[in-house]
């Protein structure tokens, strides 16, 4: 069931997840909700791309996970940023800013 992912650039999802987790550990649905809220609904992340991204980030050691009880007393898998993930996020953000700034200058010129 293809959902619109509002032109999410390849690899950007990973960065958005990392950014979301920079504040506090979260579980899967929380992350997708947060991305949707902060982007004011521009980005809707579906499960089909979210979960492979979790697996990928975990494999690369950027996030770690643990099972914790949720507020409504279920068990959920919480992801948190690792030290490596934090560095990666910093680097990616800087890279992103230089790129967008450059693109913006080109478009405004």
């Amino acid at each position, binding site marked *: *069931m*293809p959902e619109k992912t509002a032109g999410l650039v390849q690899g950007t999802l990973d960065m958005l997840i990392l950014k979301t987790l920079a504040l506090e550990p979260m579980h*899967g*649905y929380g992350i997708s909700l947060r991305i949707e809220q902060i982007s004011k609904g521009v980005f809707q992340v579906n*499960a089909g791309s979210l*979960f492979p991204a979790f*697996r990928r980030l975990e494999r690369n*050691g950027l996030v770690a996970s643990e099972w914790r009880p949720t507020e*409504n007393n279920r068990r959920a898998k919480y992801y948190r940023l690792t030290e490596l993930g934090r560095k990666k996020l910093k680097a990616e953000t800087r890279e992103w800013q230089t790129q967008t700034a450059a693109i913006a200058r080109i478009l405004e010129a």
Partner: protein
Amino acid sequence: MAILRKLVSGLKVLFRSGTAEKELDEELTDYFEEAVAAKVRAGAAPEQARREVTMEMGNMDSVKHEVRSVGWEFSIETLLRDVHYGLRMIRKSPAFASLSILAIAIGIGANTAIFSLVYGILLSPLPYPDSKRLVAVGLHERGEDTPHAMGVADFLAWRDQQQSFEHVAVFSAGYGSFDLSGLGTPETIPGVSVSADFFSTLGVSPMLGRGFLPGEDRPQSPPVAVISEEFWRNHLGSDPNVLNRSITLDGRPYTIVGVMPAQFRFPASKPLDVWTVRAFAPPVARPPYGLRAFGHLKPGVTVQAAKAELDACAARITQQYPNSPELVSTMVPLKQWMVQNVSTALLVLLGAISLVLLIAIVNVANLLLARASVRRGEIALRVALGASRWRIVRQLLTESVLLSSLGGILGLLLAYFSLRAFLAFGPGNMPRLEDVGINGAVLIFTCAICVGSGIVFGLAPALEASRGSVHDPLKAEKGNLSSQAARRTHNALIVSEVALALLLMIGSGLLIRSFLRLRDVDPGFRTDHLLTAVIALPRSYDKPPEIRAFWKEFLAKVEAMPGVSAAGISMSLPPNHLAITNPFTVEGQGYDRNRKLQLAEEMAVSPDYFRALGIPLVRGRWFTESDKVEQDNDPMIVVINETMAKQYFKGQDPVGKRLQTGDPDPKARWETIIGVVGDVKYQGLDAAPEPTLYVPYNENGWTLWSRGMYLVVRTPMEPQSVVPGLRAQLASMNKDMPLARVQTMDQLIEDSVVQEKFRTWLVSGFATIALLLAVIGIYAVISYGVAQQTREIGVRMALGASAADVLKMVLSHGLRLAAAGVALGLIGALAVTRILRSMLFSTSSTDFMSFVLTSVVLLAVALLACYIPALRATKVDPIVALRYE
């Protein structure tokens, strides 16, 4: 670090895939519930919320699939699933599977067995430290290129002057045996005499005691010996105090100083029991050339430099012995020298057996192709469900590699047992058989050809099966599944299979013809009812009169035995036991030192030797007991063979002519020719006739050479029946002397061609398998074609075609394929059989009969293979065939 983490988490998933799967399920469920809860909180009805979330999340299974395919372990899981699926397909069609597995098992098994011979003998390094720097060294006249033996003068000068080698050593070229006495029944044991540096040059040391010390090969040194582990075990009861024990070899006491580990048998092909040190007295002449030399090059020294050094050394020796010819050196890697006689044959066998494997592969490819058409429906369904073409090809290749691996496992068993049979019953006179076995290198080779052949025979069918659109096969009716392209591939495979089989059959035809010609060679005497043995007098017989007296008495006693019609002795024995060759000069010829040496096979014989063998007398007379030759100044007499008479006395009567032997020297004594006898093969049945000189064994100069002689006994009875009598006569004269190497002449002849016989058998066996596989292939494809064409045949018959027409149609199709294959095979054979040339005896590598006969046989068999399905085609009932519509 990152790789390790990925590895570990991948492995976790693989081995605890249940847990990982459960966690993923749980996580997704949790996500679902949270999403529903959120929607409910936002005011949706629970039912409505559930439906919406289900829509948003999409197919759970495809989400899971996406997640799973993130890690590397996913491809392994896919592989395992494919293997599982493949096994199910194999179980579902046992006839197809067992046929393919069997064909592949034969191909891979035979290849593994032959490769283990090739690896052990030709490829693996010699089991000595730093063996790459071991070289075989020889001296020869200019213009020849094989290493020849060297003489004592050359060796001693070279050993003392050379700088290029760490060590150099020699062993006796005519290594053979020692007479062992003092340990029970006297017997002859295999052994070799060597120079003191023999073991240090190879870099090996005994398991017990020591090797020889430098200087132990000086004339006055006490005689010492090193024995084999086997001899130590069997003859000395593994005596732990064996060192310094004495054994009597050739009537002389030797002190045992070491025991070599099992498996060490250099320089022989067969196990040796003893190595003795040879004492080198200062030489009086340059010949005889009886030493094989080898050395261990110093690091950084090139073979060229070492050669130049030895050439210079040999040139100085030539000046010391002005009558001797100019000699130059040859150096080849020691391994190459050891295996030179078998390398071509082994490579040809490997080539032949790889052709068999190719044919097996083609066969299986054909079977798979036929199945691929049948499976197109199944495959189209999978494509329709979303499988990519690559995924389908991968799945089918997994199946074919699975087939070839099962075949390979079976083949490995086959190889193991055939190799054991080969080592037990095959020709034992091949070098380095002790290094042959199924080892790591062989296993890698087997795995490689398993996977390789699986991919090769699977690729065409897999591409064929995955080809084309999804819709055609799904809606196609039965009977029209085979595409035009598939049929073309079938035909091409059959043609190549026939061509390959013909190639092998022609090769085996050539070898068989050559072998039959070799067996038909006239050795120059009557081989039946002839017993041969070796008798060596111990060193205590050291004066010519004693030796003469011994032989005279012994031969008289043997000829007096009932059942013995003639007995003689000789230094050499046909068909391939030539002891020495000697240069000669015919009277009136001059003494040109630059003339190429003319060599004659020369041997001392007793008068009745000719009669015992049955060599025909052409002119003049044989030696007699009454010839006066035993004193120094008695006239010297010789008997020559027909080849010598033809080459050197053209148009004249050689009887009464004179010649000299030895290096050209005007002062040498003259020897008078008294008779001419027929040619006898002394250098193998396949050798060209050479000039031969016979001299009386009791002639003064030859008597000391006559201590070890071949005995030949002609008897009208079964040859072996005279053996006990012979032993009794020998024991009556000396109880310590063994009657060694007792064999009938027929056995000796058989043994002399055992390698030729064996490889002829082997290649013929391969060719038979190839023919069988090709025939099965043709039969299968034609049958399949007939089954596919049932409707067409039905239509033709309904339109009035007779059974004969149908028969003709099917047969001509098969025959066209076979003929194309034969044509291709003939072209290939013309190009390829020349590599057999060195293995063929008086048979051209393009022998017309072999080419024509095998082609006819192949075509006939192919026709027969088509006949059965053709006959079945004529039985097609048009009504039934058309009802398929």
